[in-house]
């Protein structure tokens, strides 16, 4: 076995089948020590199964899982130094906070004094020094969250798995916990593997994110890479918002493709990484709302367009006001409405519904991917 202690967790060619269903299909990745790694995917993509295999609750059908360089395939869950924060936290309601945290230490055979010190220590680190005697039901949502993490961290795990632990919280608390989790991860300097279907959680907190779909990893990268250089149509569509068109390639040259969309528009796009097209190929085009410029049409057609920009005209259907993230829904002559980020200042310059506007964007920002081709 190759020993690569730089990685806390490595999976190589891990697969899991349930009857005819391939829940996890040939997944490989490694996580550097001390990083925050997220697995992002829609529900049912296999991310939970993957995590349960890492924790030891399922055995992979094929492949190997290594923790700190050692294969853990034959190791039962209670002997793996991988701890897990469950979706609904799974704190033990019949024990108080102290007992919840002490449970793992007791299982490990720690002495009374050692347990007391460690529990006190970890409670201080999560900034809840005085809750030891409280019952679980007396805690707030955020406190429970932190206790669940403390319960794992007190055991000094190699890897901490978190299974959508923010899902049950309300929006405000969720936003606050995102930051807190990131800080806790820094503080403990332990590898966190975070499972989520919420791209914003993944993007905000993670050092690296793996996007998972139908049991496979579509792409692994930093949040920025995923956002700006998606490796597949799925990633482009799943991570962040995007307008999308289906069409066929009319002409492909100089790293650009001209595409006739099914609605009858003609657009120019940049093939996504590793993609090459021939005329006639079916493709999907993605353009993010923030890359679309919107200008009131005051007789100066195409005046704002940069050289070679794509542009089209449409009527503003409605405005989606959300402060700095406001958006306009613009209906082009043909096809679905297009979303474009706009700035609404409240002044007379603002776009209003019913107006005709011009939308334009650089072909560099219009990525296209072949339809139906799997990445890699």
């Amino acid at each position, binding site marked *: 076995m190759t020993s690569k202690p730089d990685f806390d967790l490595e999976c190589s060619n891990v697969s899991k089948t349930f009857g005819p269903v391939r829940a996890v299909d040939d997944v490989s990745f490694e996580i550097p020590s001390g990083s925050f790694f997220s697995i992002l995917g829609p529900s049912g993509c296999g991310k939970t199964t993957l995590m349960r295999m890492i*924790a030891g609750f399922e055995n992979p059908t094929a492949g190997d899982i290594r923790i700190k360089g050692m294969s853990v395939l034959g190791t039962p869950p209670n002997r793996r130094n991988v701890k897990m924060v469950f979706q609904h936290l799974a704190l033990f309601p019949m024990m108080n906070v102290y007992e919840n945290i002490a449970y793992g230490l007791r299982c490990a055979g720690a002495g009374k004094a050692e347990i007391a010190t460690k529990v006190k220590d970890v409670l201080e680190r999560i900034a809840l020094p005085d809750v030891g005697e409280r019952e679980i039901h007396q805690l707030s949502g955020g406190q429970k969250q932190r206790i669940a993490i403390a319960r794992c961290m007190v055991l000094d795990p190699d890897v901490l798995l978190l299974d959508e632990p923010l899902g049950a919280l309300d929006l405000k608390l969720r936003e606050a916990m995102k930051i807190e989790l990131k800080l806790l991860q820094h503080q403990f300097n332990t590898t966190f593997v975070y499972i989520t279907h919420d791209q914003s959680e993944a993007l905000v907190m993670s050092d690296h994110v793996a996007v998972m779909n139908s049991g496979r990893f579509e792409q692994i990268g930093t949040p920025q890479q995923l956002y700006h250089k998606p490796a597949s149509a799925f990633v482009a569509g799943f991570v962040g918002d995007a307008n999308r068109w289906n069409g066929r390639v009319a002409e492909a040259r100089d790293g650009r493709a001209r595409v006739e969309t099914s609605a009858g528009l003609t657009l120019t796009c940049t093939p996504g990484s590793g993609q090459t097209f021939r005329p006639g190929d079916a493709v999907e085009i993605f353009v993010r709302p923030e890359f679309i410029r919107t200008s009131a049409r005051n007789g100066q057609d195409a005046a704002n367009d940069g050289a070679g920009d794509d542009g089209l005209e449409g009527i503003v259907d409605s405005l989606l006001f959300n402060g700095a993230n406001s958006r306009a829904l613009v209906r082009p002559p043909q096809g679905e409405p297009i979303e474009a980020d706009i700035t609404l200042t409240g002044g007379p310059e603002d776009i209003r519904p019913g107006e005709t506007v011009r939308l334009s964007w650089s072909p560099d920002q219009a990525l296209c991917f072949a339809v139906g081709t799997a990445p890699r």
Partner: protein
Amino acid sequence: MNQADFKRLSLILLFMPFALWILLLIILPHIGMGVLALREKVGPRVYEFGFGNFIDFAMEPIYWNILFRTGSMSLLVTALALIAGFPIAYYIAKIAGRRSRGALFLVCLIPLWVSDLIRAFGWILLLRETGVVSSTLLWLGLVDAPVEMLYNDITVVIGLVYTVILFMIVPLVSTLDGMDNAMIEAGYNLGGNGWTVLRRIIVPYAMPGIISGCIIVFMLTAGSYLTPILLGGKNSSWFTETIYEQFITRYNWESGAAFGFLLLAFTSFVVWLGLKLSGQTLAGTVARN
């Protein structure tokens, strides 16, 4: 009639059947029994008020023996029903699939479809000296003479466990069902082995169900009549049988009523003791289900 009066009236009407049931079938008979129990028989058609019936009980070691025998065997039955019922309940609540679950529950229910009497006769057919089990053993050559498996305490205990185990399983399933599987997995994940998880997590979580099952089973067992009588042997007095004998054979309704109250007091005391020792409350266990 205004709205409030109408509401009150309908509430009274709704409550009436329950109130009547409690009053006519529970409170009144108990008052009657209480009066009867406090009536001493002095001679034919002559009675006096007094505690003579209770004193008679207290002075007669046979009755104490029978009461303690009934109590201790009921506790044994309760313990066995718990030990046997817990894995079954755990399997039904946590391991069995949704579909097989209903079927399993049904299988547990089957013994209740037939009356106590038929069930006891079933055991008799199986276990008697010329019964199915004995003949099978003989035929297999495992024994060389017929074996009598009836008429002893072990048979009574087995028969009672079989009869009451469902009342242990149902509350256990209902509490275990409410337990998040993740809690068990968390128990393992944090380093516990199977035994630790059972002892520190599953059993404490199921405690209300365990206690309520035990209370029901203990009460049912101590108050059962047919099974101990039919399966029991020559030495197998059961307290309910003594009560029956007082009422029917000895025409001594007065002491029968007194014995009835004593059984009630005794079982209530045992239940109270059990609740105290396990730190549970009646409201938190039986009333929960």
